[in-house]
């Protein structure tokens, strides 16, 4: 069981308290109705599924109930960073392989 740091609670808590919520930084268009078929496909269906660094959303379901973003290495399963929803993709990752 992983320990995940909730950026709102500012604490590491056991994985049992959290739910994964899919890939992060996929913005919903402000003008959704006018989105092209191709853009909608990218928005709704296409996910990166990388081997290595993934940016994903988690929810502190059984804690503060907030959604937040996390950077995880899918190879080591290590969380490199968590940050609040709405914050930009971090430019630098601590401890990430070059």
């Amino acid at each position, binding site marked *: 069981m992983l320990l995940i740091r909730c950026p709102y609670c500012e604490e590491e808590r056991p994985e049992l308290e959290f739910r994964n919520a899919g890939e992060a930084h996929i913005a919903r268009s402000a003008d*959704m109705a006018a989105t092209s078929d191709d853009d909608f496909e990218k928005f709704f269906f296409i996910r990166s599924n990388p081997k290595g660094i993934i940016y994903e959303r988690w929810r502190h379901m059984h804690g503060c109930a907030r959604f937040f973003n996390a950077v995880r290495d899918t190879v080591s399963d290590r969380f490199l960073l968590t940050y609040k929803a709405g914050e930009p993709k971090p430019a630098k990752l601590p401890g990430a392989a070059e």
Partner: protein
Amino acid sequence: MIATFRIPGAGRLKQAETARFSFDGQSYAGVEGETLASALLANGVHLVGRSFKYHRPRGFLSAGAEEPNALVEIKRDSARRTPNVRATVQELYDGLTAQSQNRWPSLAFDVSALGDIASPLLSAGFYYKTFMWPKSAWKNFYEPRIRAAAGLGVAPDQPDPDHYSARFAHCDVLVLGGGAAGIAAALAAAETGVRVILADEQADFGGSLRFESGARIDGQDGFAWAQGAVAALKAMDNVRVLSRATAFGYYAQNFVGLVERVSDHLQSPGRELPRERLWQVRAKRVVLATGAIERHMVFADNDRPGVMLASAARTYLNHFGVAVGRNVGVYTANDSAYAAAIDLKKAGVGVAAIVDLRDHPTGSVIDEARALGIEVNFGRAVIRAGGKLRVSSMTVQPKNGGGERTIPVDAILMSAGWTPSVHLFSQSRGKVAFNDETKRFVPGTYAQDCVSVGACNGTDGLSATIDEAYAAGAKAAKDAGVKNAGANTVKGIKPKVDASESWSRGMLGAAPGAGPDTTVKAFVDFQNDVTAKDIRQAVHEGMRSIEHVKRFTTNGMATDQGKTSNMHGLAIAAETLDKPIPQVGLTTFRAPYTPVTFGSIVGHARGPLFDPTRKTAIHPWAEPQGAVFEDVGQWKRAWYFPKAGEDMHAAVDRECVTVRKTAGLFDASTLGKIEVVGPDAAKFMELLYTNPWEKLEPGRCRYGIMLREDGFIYDDGVVGRLAADRFHVTTTTGGAPRVMNHMEDYLQTEFPHLNVWLTSTTEQWAVIAVQGPKSRDIIAPLVEGIDMSDGALPHMSVREGRICGVPTRLFRMSFTGERGFEVNVPADYGQAVWEALWAEGQKHGACAYGTETMHVLRAEKGYIIVGQDTDGTVTPGDAGLDWAVGKKKTDFVGIRGMARPDLVAKGRKQLVGLKTKDPKVVLEEGAQIVGDPKQAIPMTMIGHVTSSYWSENCGRSIALALVTGGRGRMGETLYVPMPNGTIEVEVTGMVFFDEKGERLNG
């Protein structure tokens, strides 16, 4: 029977109580505190099992958790039968009953042992090669026979009556292994005041100090020192000491699973004691002190009962006071077996000879053995063990060939050296490194915050071990980040080693006499009956990777996970491949280290505690009324209320008719309820539902549809607007949690600018639906402060007021098509208000109805149930709900998805009604629909039945179905092929009763 192999004065169980036990029906005496293995050996019993594949007679190889052979069934009563218990681990208690396994009719005469003679047919990979022909024989002949013969032990056939508990624990330093290294590390860490857990799989701490008679620490015998040190640790507030606790798995971020065997060693464990306790420990630092496991010598017939590891014989003698024979032989490739011979000789046991594979070993143990008059042979190999049910001799030959000599013995003690136990280190994703000089895999690159000390780290000698472990324990405490916490300011003193033994070196692979030119059965893996020849054969048949060799031969794949066999198997494969060992690689160590019961993993989460059961406030009323309940998710919902003599159909028919004739009461409390509040509440609702909300007046309700972004229906429910900034949203019973999650997700991440709060109120409100022509008459006398006239409270409106003196949100709404109300009251008042309404209802002849009647009544009106009539691929248009989509809206979740080409294309499946041509025939839900029943199989299916009931009110069966282009097929005849005939149906509209909807105000 007198325990003839117990040596007076030897061992540490002198004051122990006698324990009587039975093995295969024969009664014996042992002493409490020893293992079943020790007790059997004390009685001269070596033959305890039959091997898995060849059914060869087997005895004890070891004195610990690595035991591959001595697996027995322990039976407490008819329900408490545990197969595959290692007799070397099971502690004896008075009355213990054990049975051997894998034999018929008896252990000494086993019919299946013919497999040993037929073994050329059962060579490596035989599963993959044999039983291939004829193909038809597999199912009826081979498979049943293989299944009957396969497996170890017999699974119990009754539910497990024991209970199992679980604990989470946190500590700064977790020390795994309670031998000299673990104890020293725990002492060093504990003295700094940090929180320490020390765990060991054995009943007694001390590890190899149990048998290592040459060890002296702090002026005491090593084992006595260990007991004193552990007692001191136990007395410290910051230390938890767990014995009989096996660390079976090392997971991410220093999370370690341990199973503590709490009561398996007790004669009559009290009901309050769990059988086992699962510990899930999160440690800042882990110290691995898991020791090493002795390897056997690989020579012909090395599996005969009486052939065992030298350290095991020493444990039986020095700890339990039991001699494993009267005239033992020793076969070794390192020093440690000499110590066994010396200890046995000093205890009065005859030592026939020591056979040492090495040419010119020197050292004090060799001199001591000679001084005691033991015959020592160098450069020689034991090429064969004699005897069948018990070893009777060993045949010795110079290792480069020459004359054979057979020496009578009744036990052979063997040692090929020691394998560091890197299992947990490897599970932690650490990478092992091969030390070419010592031929050992030892911890190399660490992946987690842990450190290995002592024998598992390849550290030889007690003095070096304690130095290393003590330093590592202190460092782990420091690294855990606790600065001199606690009151322990007195610095500890490192234990001082006064004497120790040397066990370095040894050999890997097959010994002379079991080489490639032979076909002898020299066992590498005892539990899976893998011989040196099998491993060579695997390589010859093309297996190159050790992972393939392992799977082809099943070497190391038994329940002992190759604790004694992996290194030998690897060395033989490497030799056959003519490659250095590290290039062939090591197979992966996986959890669990030793078998873990399902019970300990499941813990309390079984039976009624497997999943929470949710009951409504009205449940205590419904139960004594004779309600039959159905499970809806975690909820228990009243399904129907049968009167005396009624079956389900009769009850449901009566309920359906009564509701439409007078009225019915229905417990709708399980509906999901979410309070959406805030200045932007209406804007939020506009975005989350397809409907328009801004113009809905406070006090009015609307049926809302929620989509996912892909345009498919996600949930539905009636929403009441209580105020400009407050909505009372209802969801489906099963959908409540995911709808709440869906709403929170959008509010927090996509629309965070909206000033809205969401609160789940499902459990706060009890909901009593009162439906039927008399519903208002039933409710009105109890309501205060609400004008219930049709003008003031029309269909689809909501008012706040009081009922029976308690606050209510009174909804005028209907899921039956009748005039209807849903009375929301705080859950605590739910039962009282229900009972008051029930009393009023009785005056009008109303009934209580359950979910089945609710389903029938709504289907008569064509009201859908999300999740039954929709399946996640149904759009509002498909369901005939286009009217609920705000045409002028510019955005809501799903607006773009709904416009996808496939979702607007012609020929989609649409919800329609179906009437069977024979009105008495009720379709099966899920049944497939075809256009032409005469077409060839497989037929083209054009839809399926989603809801189907007998409708007493309509006097016929009714059904809803999803049918391709359904709304264009009105009046068309379609067909439902069933196993006993094809059913003709007519496509109709979805409303079967009161098509004009007049009864809503009736």
